[in-house]
């Protein structure tokens, strides 16, 4: 069974690059163009990790994360945020307030994204293994 990753970004080529990198490394990937679409997917499909952009039409990254944190099913979902924002977006604040695991600033390296996603699913798997017996 492969790990599932949901990607949300309004830039199609960013979405595609991340998708290719993750799929080629054995992840089951679904994509959304904005927060609303991402939320709709989350209702029927539970990913292990969600990677979301900060600025998106209709529902932005923080709005989507806030919804996730308010819902029982997605409360502990591991999230990586991507953003082209500069100094006005503080990683420490986002991590503390929204429980985001990592803020990756654009331009980002797909390799780096992959390693962060892998790290997250592995720690999740370890925690699950430790908790199961």
């Amino acid at each position: 069974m492969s790990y599932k990753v949901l990607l949300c970004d309004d830039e199609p080529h960013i979405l595609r690059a991340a998708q290719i990198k993750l799929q080629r490394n054995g992840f089951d990937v679904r994509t959304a163009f904005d927060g609303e679409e991402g939320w709709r997917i989350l209702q029927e499909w539970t990913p292990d990790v969600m990677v979301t952009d900060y600025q998106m039409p209709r529902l932005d990254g923080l709005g989507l994360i806030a919804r996730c944190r308010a819902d029982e099913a997605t409360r502990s979902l591991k999230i990586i945020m991507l953003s082209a924002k500069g100094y006005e977006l503080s990683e420490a604040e986002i991590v503390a307030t929204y429980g985001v695991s990592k803020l990756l600033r654009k331009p980002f390296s797909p390799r780096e994204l992959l390693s962060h996603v892998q790290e997250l699913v592995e720690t999740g798997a370890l925690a699950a293994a430790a908790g199961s017996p």
Partner: protein
Amino acid sequence: MKTHIKTNLYAVGSVILPAAALLIAWAAVQSSVGLTETLFRCSLLSIVLAAVGVYTSVVLARAAVEHQAACRCLELLVRTEDEVLRNSTAPAQLNGVPAASPWHVVYAQLRQRLKDHSERLSEGEMMRAGLKLKSRRFQDKLERIEQILSGLADPVVACDEYGELIVANRAAEQLLGFNVQTAQTRILRELTACTPVLELIDDAKRRRSAGQRVGEFELCDADGRKRWYRVTAVSMLAQDAETPDMGGSRVVAFFRDISVEKDIQKRNAEFVSAVSHEMKTPLAGIRAYVELLADGDADDEQTREEFLGVITGQADRLQRLVENLLNIARIEAGVVAVSKESQSLNDILEEAFHLVQPSAEAKQIELASDLSPMYLSVRVDRDLILQAAINLLSNAVKYTPSGKSVVLRSRVDGLDVWFEVEDTGVGLSEEDQHKVFEKFYRVQKDKEMAAGTGLGLPLAKHIVEDVHGGRLTVRSVADQGSTFRIQLPAAAKVSTAVGAGA
């Protein structure tokens, strides 16, 4: 008057009495022949009486003269005017008074005394007039300073070394919401409106040497509007040594409204932030796909081609963004080299049409041209108007769904010529119709449809309105489409205007 009559009576008496005595004496001598001794004695007595009478009348006459001199002396002194005394035209001597009369001495002394007093009085008057003039000048100066202060648009307050408010102009009263005349207290510390700037003023007050303290504060005026002020508190040391050292100096605080500067700073920061954000997005694409290619994530030739296509496309986007930015900056700074020449608008439009057609075809959009059959002469910078036309056309193609149409139209309208790009896209809301001309503003729906820099329309507006004196307008119906129209003055009119300007 009474004295005068008395004097006359004495004079008459002094004449009549001796005359009567002499008459009696003469009668006695005439009749002495046959008269008795008694009668002789009577006549002798009469002679004595007459002598006494003569002596008395002489004394009385002299007294009358003295009296007259005294009266004359007093009269002269009373009549003597200050000016006469000053000018020394007053008679130094008493006319009609014998030279030996002691009244001359009295008169001279009194005259000198009066003269001295008169001089002192005139000196005092001159001093008083001088002081009055000085005081009026000070009053005028004070009024002028007060007028200037109250006329100043910038608020100014001043407090003394005790921390009590001594001056607040009208602008300061409006800003801080109190009236110096009617305020219950003038102690700065007790005026809540002054609280934000208190520390700065206190700091300046504590200084032992002349100097100033500057701070920036966001203050709420009486109407509740928030504005930024740069407050300069200048400490003024007492000039005179007599002023006791109260552990501080007087302070004047000037408030300068810097809301506009702050706004510009904020907008600059936002602009830089927006530019960097817009640049990072295509950069992110380039970096990601270069890395994918380097990592061998493209299995086949087709995927490799796709990746290279994305890299090229994003590099183009970055280049467009930089060019648009530079063009906007150059136009805004007024350094863009504009070479306006009379030419055919339709020629420019046809060129733009052919440049955009491939992307319309790729998206299966019917791009139609409906150009005026007339020769539309415009005096424009060809490259700039071509850029504006391309920006409108490529926007229309970008934001119109596949299968729909875009029309490029040109017409002549009186002295103006116009061209417009009509699309059948999603349309713009009332709010968006204004905002699309702001830098980096992107309509949410548009973001879903295509990548953009948010600079195309602001640049076109600059080109048309600032460089060519034309107008770029938009009309739009939601879900039916938008029409962007560029109106330009016809060549004839433009050349007249240029000729007049030159």
